[in-house]
């Protein structure tokens, strides 16, 4: 039961890869597409190697590091998409590094679980949790930003952020509780993580299932008339000054 539970998201991820390919998301969101494709491949590889303990150990930790790295890159990508109109404003380029610094700082302040042996695993777990904090931060920040500035809600970056937000919120919550309760909490931790991740993948599927809208080009005649009217007003204003 426990082993099977881990592989529930794999078919969902494969479905998501199909949906993303159909929507051409590898062009618009290359890092997110890589993250999803990597996730599907990692799940399948873990499933195939679970009988070989030594191999499984390395594949598990290496794919975990890959998840963290690609997750961070996907967040960077979606933040750049949302802020693409503000790229000329210098301080918008500092948002992502600032969020990453805050995420790392918060987690470094936290107690590191002593059960982890070896610096590599410690770094992977620390990095992974820092990325979770970054994902929660960016999701919560985006919702606040979009709500405040009246952005369109139905846009892919927000869907991507929502999926990461749901999973990372639950993952952080269970990690904190896990460090409080210890190994007694193991099964519940596994189950909630898998359910949250599956829910996140369902959110992504739901968002990317709806086709992207291309803005129709305005009628050239009416556009010329409208711009003429605007220019008349601007001329009058200039003359009045």
């Amino acid at each position, binding site marked *: 039961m426990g082993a099977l539970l881990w592989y529930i998201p794999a078919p969902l991820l494969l479905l998501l890869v199909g949906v993303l390919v159909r929507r051409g998301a590898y062009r618009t969101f290359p890092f997110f597409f890589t993250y999803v494709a990597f996730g599907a491949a990692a799940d399948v590889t873990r499933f195939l190697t679970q009988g070989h303990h030594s191999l499984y150990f390395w594949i598990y930790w290496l794919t975990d590091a890959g998840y963290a790295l690609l997750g961070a890159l996907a967040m960077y990508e979606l933040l750049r998409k949302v802020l693409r109109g503000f790229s000329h404003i210098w301080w918008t380029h500092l948002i992502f590094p600032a969020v990453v610094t805050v995420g790392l700082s918060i987690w470094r302040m936290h107690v590191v679980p002593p059960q982890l042996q070896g610096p590599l695993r410690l770094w992977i777990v620390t990095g992974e949790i820092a990325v979770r904090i970054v994902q929660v931060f960016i999701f919560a920040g985006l919702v606040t930003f979009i709500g405040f500035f009246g952005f369109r809600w139905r*846009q892919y970056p927000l869907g991507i952020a929502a999926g990461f937000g749901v999973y990372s919120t639950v993952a952080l919550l269970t990690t904190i509780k896990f460090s409080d309760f210890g190994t007694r909490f193991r099964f519940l931790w596994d189950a909630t993580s898998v359910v949250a991740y599956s829910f996140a993948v369902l959110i992504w599927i739901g968002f990317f299932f709806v086709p992207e809208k291309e803005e129709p080009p*305005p009628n050239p005649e009416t556009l010329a008339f409208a711009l003429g009217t605007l220019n008349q007003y601007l001329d009058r204003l200039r003359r009045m000054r």
Partner: protein
Amino acid sequence: MLSSILIWLLLAWSALGLMYFLYRACARVPRHDPKNLVHYLHPVDWDLLESLLDPAADFELRWRLSPREFREEQRCRMRLFRELLRRMSHNSAVLAEFDNALFGKDDFTPGPGSKVEEAAIKVRLYCTAARIKLRVWLSLPDTLRAVPMPDLARLRMAADLDGPKVYEELKAAAVEAFADLQPAELDALTRNL
């Protein structure tokens, strides 16, 4: 201890955000008739805006008035500018909402949806930053004479954005987006922005 508190605050913020997100994602986009757009807009007096942000006006007032009179006059001008900012911010929100309602429908976009939306966000960002500055300036007690009264022209730029320029961009984007309106309606739209 501090990190635990911060993580819990972050989680609570995210949970609230998630609930709000689900509510907004499921809610229907409000339907609007483009003919009604003009009635929602608050006219912005462009001449007044330019005169308030004119460095020469600040200089002339400083030269002509006593320090006490200048402080009073400058506070009045700040309140006036705050009202213009409120209108600009309101108009940008209205235009973004109408643009979303008329052209957004239920489709998804790979980022901020349209020129109007992008320009509206710049205007709102500018207005928010400028209003925060104004709030700070206006909250300084009048008796605090040691702090020099700032020039209003400095508020042309806020959050690294040129206010009048981004509002012009919003106007142009709105004219382009609502180009299918009747000539009289388009005329009214241009006048009311």
